[in-house]
């Protein structure tokens, strides 16, 4: 049992401007404090402070190599931070493994798709349900009543989850043979199956056409409303980011350079400089 930190701040601190009104006064689902990691002297992420409300959709953007995916890896404990802490629902996660972080309620998808390619679509979702619907190894081997009951439950639940993206008819298809867009959607379903409080999406619209992206935006909002969870996403498609993100955080060289709503970010001179270079002087990097 991890102890509750006594001094957990309530939203809207420390990010006053980006938490939506309905989440104000509630405990943030994710809070980072001075989070940072060094790789042999190189500070990939530094002094990263953010708070995410329990039903917020927030975006993490920045130029290539800014450290966005590194932040996701820090949040999910793929990397252990060299400084600072991550609080999930007010509980400190230092020293936890990826698996424990997932049980705390943080699920993610990957930039380069990481499905279990040799297994069927349904089995991929069933693996996501691993910690939700349980039975023991021996019950599985000797086909105890608990096995049949749980497998039936898993079957129904996975079809239910797949139907969010209208994929229930593909349940028996091998995951590796799905088209690219469907694989991305399946990754989201698998992450949702772990019953998270916070869903991290790493470039969910990569490789999707505008029509698919539009559909994805609707679905992300639907997921947030239906499951009442927070979503944090990395995306280069600005239509998607500006369209659905309530709060946006801009990262450059491992540091947060701006936080705010879509309008604020679009007008922020520091952000424009980071993306387009400054107007006044020559780029000499």
């Amino acid at each position, binding site marked *: 049992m991890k102890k509750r930190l006594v001094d957990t701040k309530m939203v809207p601190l420390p990010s006053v401007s980006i938490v939506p009104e309905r989440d104000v006064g509630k405990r943030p689902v994710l809070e980072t404090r001075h989070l940072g990691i060094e790789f042999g002297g190189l500070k990939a992420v530094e002094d990263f402070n953010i708070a995410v409300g329990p039903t917020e959709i927030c975006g993490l953007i920045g130029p290539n190599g800014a450290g966005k995916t590194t932040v996701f890896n820090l949040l999910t404990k793929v990397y252990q931070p060299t400084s600072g802490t991550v609080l999930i629902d007010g509980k400190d996660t230092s020293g936890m493994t990826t698996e424990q972080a997932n049980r705390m309620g943080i699920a993610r998808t990957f930039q380069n798709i990481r499905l*279990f390619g040799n297994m069927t679509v349904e089995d991929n979702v069933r693996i996501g349900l691993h910690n939700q619907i349980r039975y023991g190894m021996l019950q599985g081997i000797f086909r105890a009543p608990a096995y049949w009951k749980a497998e039936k439950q898993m079957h129904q639940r996975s079809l239910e989850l797949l139907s969010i993206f209208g994929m229930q008819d593909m349940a028996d298809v091998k995951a590796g043979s799905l088209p690219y867009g469907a694989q991305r959607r399946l990754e989201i379903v698998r992450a949702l199956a772990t019953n998270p409080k916070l869903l991290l999406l790493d470039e969910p619209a990569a490789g999707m056409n505008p029509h698919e992206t539009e559909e994805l935006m609707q679905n992300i909002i639907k997921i947030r409303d239906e499951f009442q969870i927070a979503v944090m996403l990395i995306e280069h498609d600005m239509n998607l980011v500006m369209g659905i993100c309530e709060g946006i955080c801009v990262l450059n060289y491992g540091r947060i350079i701006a936080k705010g709503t879509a309008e604020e970010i679009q007008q922020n001179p520091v952000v424009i400089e980071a993306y387009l270079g400054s107007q006044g002087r020559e780029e000499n990097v």
Partner: protein
Amino acid sequence: MKINKKLLNALITFAIVIVAFILCEAALEGWFGKGFALKRADKGLLVPICVYIVLAVSLNLIVGISGELSLGHAGFMSIGAFSGVVVATWLEKALLTIDAAGKTVPFFSDTAILVIAIIVAGAIAAVAGVIIGIPALRLRGDYLAIVLLAFGEIIRNVMNCVLVWVEGSTLQFALKINEGSAAAVPGGAQMVINGAQGTNNKVMSVAFNNERFIVGFVLVIFTLFVVLNLINSRSGRAIMAIRDNRIAAESVGLNVMKYKMMAFVIGAALAGMAGCLYGLNMKTVTAVDFDYNMSIEILVIVVLGGIGSIRGSVIAAVLLKVLPEKLRFLNDYRMFAYAVVLIVVMLATNSPILKNLWALLMRIRPLRVAAEWLQALPGRIKAALPWNKKNGKAGEAQ
């Protein structure tokens, strides 16, 4: 109940093994007449074939399903064989009863002793699997393979020093570190395990024994039951997920060490059971029998049968045990021919020519029709089953 593809595949594997067993029994009983009766050498192969099927399937669980290359499988077999012989001797010498004629006889029959010994040997091998797995499974890939190879050799060297003998109705243990420590053994004592000279199995008769073959068959069925049911359960899916993509498996909350250990320990326990049957089927087994060559031999079966394919392991185990015997007429060139056959099979199963040949054959109409009919057969069987007909919908879905 719903018959799905996985269940059907498992049932086919069971059916193949059971039919093969019935054919063997029929041949033993002479139902097909003299021409098909098994020769003595062939009879002697039956129990080792069962042993190798169990070994191959259990190694396939570790290598194919869990994705960890193990070169120390013979070590667990060795532990099973030696502990099996000790348990069997103890059961025979210490647990006695008086029969109707007033004679003192062992409490259990030979077959019961064999079954109990197999169970105990499996448990001991499982404990060894836990002890070895905890440090070794933290490594990955080649490093794991080398460490397991080393553990196999350590087991062999330790077993080389074990002395077990009978004193009255008790068993005495000693380790033969040097020549001096052998002096602890009283002269004329009946040795059960005599260091490098191996076991002295006085419990079972050496000649072929049909009951032992039946125990072997039951062990094969048990192994298939455990492994196939494990694969198609929550734990098995977790094991395969970790093999397919470790990072993704961690990110959905799977305990990687737990499931790697599960596959490894079940594999070790089954190998120990097979080793026990092997040890009690022979008059003598020595520690040197279970060196890395044995591990490689099992690995060859797994690779030949197809990594991850349980049915393939069963078939390859039978073929690779029968083949050397059937090549005896080649005398000195026997092992050479064996190697050539192995290479040809490996090449053939992976060659594009064979796949093209298949495509070519499919262009011939009658063959194509036959193949399509066979492929549709599971669906038709499924549709024809009474419980599916009742629903009315299941059949049409195909």
